[in-house]
């Protein structure tokens, strides 16, 4: 159930997701106006608390907040008290004293947004925590697929690559399954997390089998430091085995779309010819990212009214 915070797709039900996507459709429309600003969150303060470097997600949240007229403050890790050996919870308690309306958190370690939410009364939005969740990414992926295919229900999606270290994979597994799609994952066995089947997906080591007849192929970004050494022998071997190219894509449905959360390592996760295959889809993911984040900011912080600081969305738990 969507509650005060958005920590993960795991906590949402289908109705919550539908509601966010519907709201995001309206927000997309704002982005196409000449004057891309509405007064919805005027006077509200939103802090982007990014402990891990990020350009795209941070900018996307910043644009989303500004289009809704909120005051958006970027609190970069380098400029934070972290370097002074203050614990993350001390940082959170300091933020609490600043009477914020929403805090967007990204951290390299799973669980930090939850730990921060436990001490903050303002809504916390997870912008990616370790290999745990990246809920707004999954929501924008849902929106992109729904706009492309007209539905999610009954589709089959294959998520390919380093599933073990991927928060995008986990959030998308929850998101697409809750919306009625079948989800497969594929990658080298050492990059498939233990007991992945408990999340309701089927794991493949053969890319060809995994993408056989699917509607959507989602390639994950692979971190450079994992391309050599104990995880993988070499870039070349990875791209030959798990990189998506036109040849391999022939096993998917004819109208299959290829997605990527970005930034793409060209020639590694996706072949050069494919990055140009319907490039609109991947760029549409970016556009939808702003809309989805506007929707989430609006739904979580926009409903807080004067004298009523803890209005919940739906029947979520109060803390």
């Amino acid at each position: 159930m969507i509650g005060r915070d958005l920590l993960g797709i795991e906590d949402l039900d289908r109705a919550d997701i539908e509601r966010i996507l519907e709201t995001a459709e309206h927000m997309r429309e704002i982005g196409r106006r000449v004057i891309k600003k509405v007064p919805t969150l005027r006077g509200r303060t939103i802090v982007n608390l990014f402990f891990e470097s990020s350009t795209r997600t941070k900018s996307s949240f910043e644009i989303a907040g500004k289009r809704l007229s909120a005051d958006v403050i970027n609190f970069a890790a380098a400029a934070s008290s972290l370097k002074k050996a203050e614990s993350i919870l001390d940082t959170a308690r300091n933020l609490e004293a600043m009477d914020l309306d929403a805090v967007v958190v990204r951290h390299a370690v799973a669980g930090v947004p939850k730990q921060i939410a436990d001490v903050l009364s303002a809504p916390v939005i997870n912008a990616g925590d370790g290999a745990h969740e990246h809920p707004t990414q999954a929501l924008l992926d849902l929106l992109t697929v729904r706009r492309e295919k007209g539905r999610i229900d009954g589709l089959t999606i294959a998520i390919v690559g380093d599933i073990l270290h991927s928060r995008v994979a986990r959030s998308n597994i929850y998101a697409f399954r809750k919306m009625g799609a079948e989800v497969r994952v594929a990658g080298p066995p050492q990059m498939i997390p233990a007991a992945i089947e408990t999340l309701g997906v089927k794991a493949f080591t053969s890319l060809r089998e995994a993408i056989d007849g699917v509607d959507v192929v989602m390639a994950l970004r692979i971190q450079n430091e994992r391309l050599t050494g104990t995880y993988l022998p070499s870039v070349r071997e990875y791209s030959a085995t798990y990189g998506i190219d036109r040849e391999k894509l022939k096993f998917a449905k004819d109208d299959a779309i290829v997605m990527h959360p970005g930034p793409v390592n060209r020639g590694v996760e996706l072949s050069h010819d494919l990055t140009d295959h319907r490039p609109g889809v991947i760029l549409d993911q970016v556009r939808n990212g702003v809309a989805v984040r506007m929707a989430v900011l609006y739904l979580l912080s926009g409903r807080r009214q004067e004298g009523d600081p803890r209005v919940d969305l739906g029947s979520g738990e109060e803390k």
Partner: protein
Amino acid sequence: MSQQRIWIRGGRILDPAAERDEPGDVLIEGGVIVAVGTKLDASDAEVIDAKGAWIAPGFVDLHTHLREPGQEYKEDIASGGRSAVAGGFAAVACMANTHPVNDDPAMTDYIIDRAKQDSPARVYPIAAATRGLEGTEMTEMSALVDAGAVAFSDDGKTIMDGGVMRRILEYSRTVGKPVITHGEDRHLVAGGVVNEGPVSTKLGLPGNPAVAEVVLITRDLMLAELTGAHLHVAHVSTKGAVAAIRQARERGVHVTAEVTPHHLTLTDEALLGYDTNAKVAPPLRSAADVRACREGLVDGTIDAIATDHAPHAVHEKDLEFTEAPPGLIGFETAFPVVLDLVRSGELSPLELMRRLSTNPAKILDRPGGSLAIGAAANVAILDPDRSWTYDPAKGYSKSRNSPWAGHTLTGRAIATIVGGWLVYDVERGVLYP
């Protein structure tokens, strides 16, 4: 000053050493037990009413971290000793990972000296097996034993070099003391902080596979078999390790083992909310592992319950999950937590007391674990039915890192006697020193 004369009246006597489970009184004088029976009369003695309570040998904890010297902000020998007696422990063995490390007879001396002055519980130092816990050069075992060391261990810093471990086990035979292994293959752990499985996958935290424990314990069991030394396995947490120990015992390997209250009762699902107070090493495991540990404790594969009391300050546990140090405080909650095995019918009260007192005393070759006439008067008086809400801030440890904080627990130590002195009473608190 002579010790008190104490008359413990009307309890259920549980003396595993004598296979005794019957109602009665215990009379203590001059630091020893002078009478056990039903028709005692010692009207001039201090009376402890044990109606409805168990009278058992004081618990002996094989595995604790008292943090002194060097990390007194987490715990010291005084606070750790006070917390111990408040949980029914009369004696605790403390690990060598202090700062400086207890790898030198002078340090062992120091700990024993501090304990004599500061701690209501007996304290038995475990010396490092290698200098600086670095896993390379062995310590002076003979001198350390002369100073009072009861066992050797590098604990959390597993000795990864099998050749070094072999030499340590061989040499330990000259002093006749156990070598305690913390069985986790560091390379297989590979930074894992949560048991590898559905929970680590869901949390997105690095997994620590059960096989990391099984592999290392299996290695050490084979080395114990080769050398004939006494290997003691710390905090067994996996089904595979229980099976390996059981098989080794059948082959006649000189092995003993312990399990913690948390590995007997909590699964990795306790971590689903990222509670760093439930982060321990080895990690909390699956329900099947918990079942296997309980079976191992019941059938004698695992001899003893040990807390692995590991205090850490609030600001250290307030960190990111991967950064927070592993460990929890366990003295004051151990008895109510492990009473679960009695409530479930897996262990009788007498057998539970054996695993908390008689067996660990035997492993350490120290007095205790018995209520025989003439034995040192180390006694725990326990109310198995008392319900209370645990608040670590009101306990005696300096730290608060407990997954049971705020929980209502059933069962509590109501008095503890060490060396003939009533050192703890639940109403009056710690009385001495």
